[in-house]
């Protein structure tokens, strides 16, 4: 019954396996080294540009001393407004998909389009908002930038909201209904509260995603050399400053671009890690 495998076959299988295992180790090492190199140059080049001026001065013209104050404030304003819009729309849309859509045709269409929108090229969102808000109102504005960022953030929030709401047991909904609460009240006071940590994770991930986006801001918020709280006018942002300053031939501005890149990437990483902490709390419970 038991036929012994021929030693040749065994040797060949083991050799194939050794090659495969070796390949996996090798490419993992290559990948980690490449990514570590990128992070290293980011930290090394960025840190040399970091100083107090970064936070106190505005973006300079070539040859003068400057910082990133206007870009930091502009980025924060636009991302904050974008998140306000995106959380409102995303949470409601996710709630509809999870609680009302059921297996309806329209629901599955929306779910599908949301997934497509999740990885749609962000530069096209910029073109869309340009035609929607910039051209008709004759001017680039921070509001247009915020709307473009919101369109990118909404699908992330919708998706996570739907996912975490679906994890809540049906009995939770039934218990709320049995107490005589209207369904919207059940959603608001029971389901949203029970899924809060998951929804916060989604919002943080969306925030991390939009805070590094450059392409949709190029044609909407444009840039602004000066400090301004006015979002009806062109607004500076860190990614656009990186884009503009990195492509100039001036070493000062390139250095500033590296510092801005370090700030942006650091913020994105910090927010992503925060999001993981929140989702870990949810998973372990």
């Amino acid at each position: 019954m038991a036929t012994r495998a021929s030693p040749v076959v065994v040797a060949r299988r083991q050799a194939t396996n050794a090659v495969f295992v070796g390949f996996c180790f090798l490419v993992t090492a290559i990948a980690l080294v490449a990514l570590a190199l990128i992070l290293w140059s980011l930290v090394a080049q960025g840190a040399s540009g970091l100083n107090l001026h970064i936070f106190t001065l505005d973006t300079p013209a070539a040859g003068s001393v400057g910082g990133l104050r206007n870009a930091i404030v502009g980025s924060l304003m636009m991302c904050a407004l974008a998140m306000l819009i995106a959380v409102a729309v995303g949470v409601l849309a996710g709630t509809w998909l999870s609680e009302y859509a059921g297996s309806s045709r329209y629901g599955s269409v929306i779910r599908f389009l949301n997934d497509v929108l999740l990885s749609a090229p962000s530069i096209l969102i910029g073109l869309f908002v340009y035609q929607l808000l910039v051209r008709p109102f004759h001017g680039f504005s921070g509001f247009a930038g915020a709307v473009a960022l919101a369109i990118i953030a909404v699908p992330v929030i919708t998706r996570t909201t739907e996912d975490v709401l679906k994890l809540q047991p049906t009995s939770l909904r039934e218990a709320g209904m049995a107490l005589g609460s209207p369904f919207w009240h059940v959603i608001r006071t029971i389901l949203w509260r029970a899924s809060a940590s998951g929804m916060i994770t989604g919002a943080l991930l969306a925030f991390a995603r939009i805070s590094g986006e450059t392409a949709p801001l190029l044609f909407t918020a444009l840039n602004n050399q000066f400090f301004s709280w006015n979002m009806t006018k062109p607004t500076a942002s860190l990614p656009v400053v990186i884009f503009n300053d990195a492509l100039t031939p001036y070493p000062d501005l390139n250095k500033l671009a590296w510092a801005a890149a370090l700030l942006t990437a650091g913020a994105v990483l910090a927010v992503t890690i925060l999001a993981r902490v929140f989702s870990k709390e949810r998973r372990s419970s």
Partner: protein
Amino acid sequence: MSDTARTVAGRAFTVADTHPGRRISPRGSAFDYAFQALCFAAATALLASLGGVLISLAIGGWPVLSKFGFGFLTGKTWDPVRDIYGAAGPIVDTIITSLLALMLSLPIAGGVAFFLTELCPSFLRRPIGTAVELLAGIPSIVYGMWGLFVFAPVFAAKIEIPLMGMAPPGSIWETLLSGIPNGSGILSASIILAIMILPFMAATLRELLNTVPPQVRESAYGLGATTAEVVMKVTLPYVRRGAVGAVMLGLGRALGETMAVTFIIGNSHDFPKGLFDSGATIASTIANEFNEASGLQASALIALGLVLFVLTFLVLALARLLLRNPEG
């Protein structure tokens, strides 16, 4: 229902008292419909934004599309001075860089995912897995900058110039390796794109492979299969639809990526001749020219956007259909 409703919260419901047996809606239920409508409107806003992108691109690009017709897709001349717009160069560059990036990145992403699911010692599994996931979130402009300032000079000196010197004259290699060896060009852009989509694809593949039930994997090992055989003949086939979906998702990212490419592709609209030649993808062309463009040129750029939209929509739609049902 009415009896229980009457006693809820100890409140007397006069309606129920005067009309025994009549259903009472709980307080605040009038808002139920409004809330449902609100949620519905938010979901529809998603549809509207995607539809809006398509419609606005179609309207904005119409002047050029109607003037050049199908020639817009096949024309090789992109000349804002004479107002002649043919998009073949950017379209071909977009597809070539994305496919090259995918070819470079896929074996490595696969290797990383297999390493993390099968080979990695358990104390390293979480840190490396987390690092890969975190790197997937780094803004693409960082990759672009690194490509421009760090990668391009090294690539020009260490790879491009020696390779061009080695290419036998008159052979296909000479054509393939032609171009200006300044570190930017089609191949450089593909490599940077590959590095950018690598963490994303590795993380997605790892997540997929983790969905394979442990019994499946363990029974394969129990039958005496080697690691290579378990991966290639059991776990990977188990999620093959999803794996193809993950690859398509990576391709979709590469097609629409702007910042990682714009810095390093060289920005020339001529039809590419060799791997070291400068090029321009659809996204990089839009990013570079749109703010200075007006009239027909702006319309041509929006029409390019429409081409990119259709291209990525098809790829992403296919990816999502495959990922929805990763097994089978």
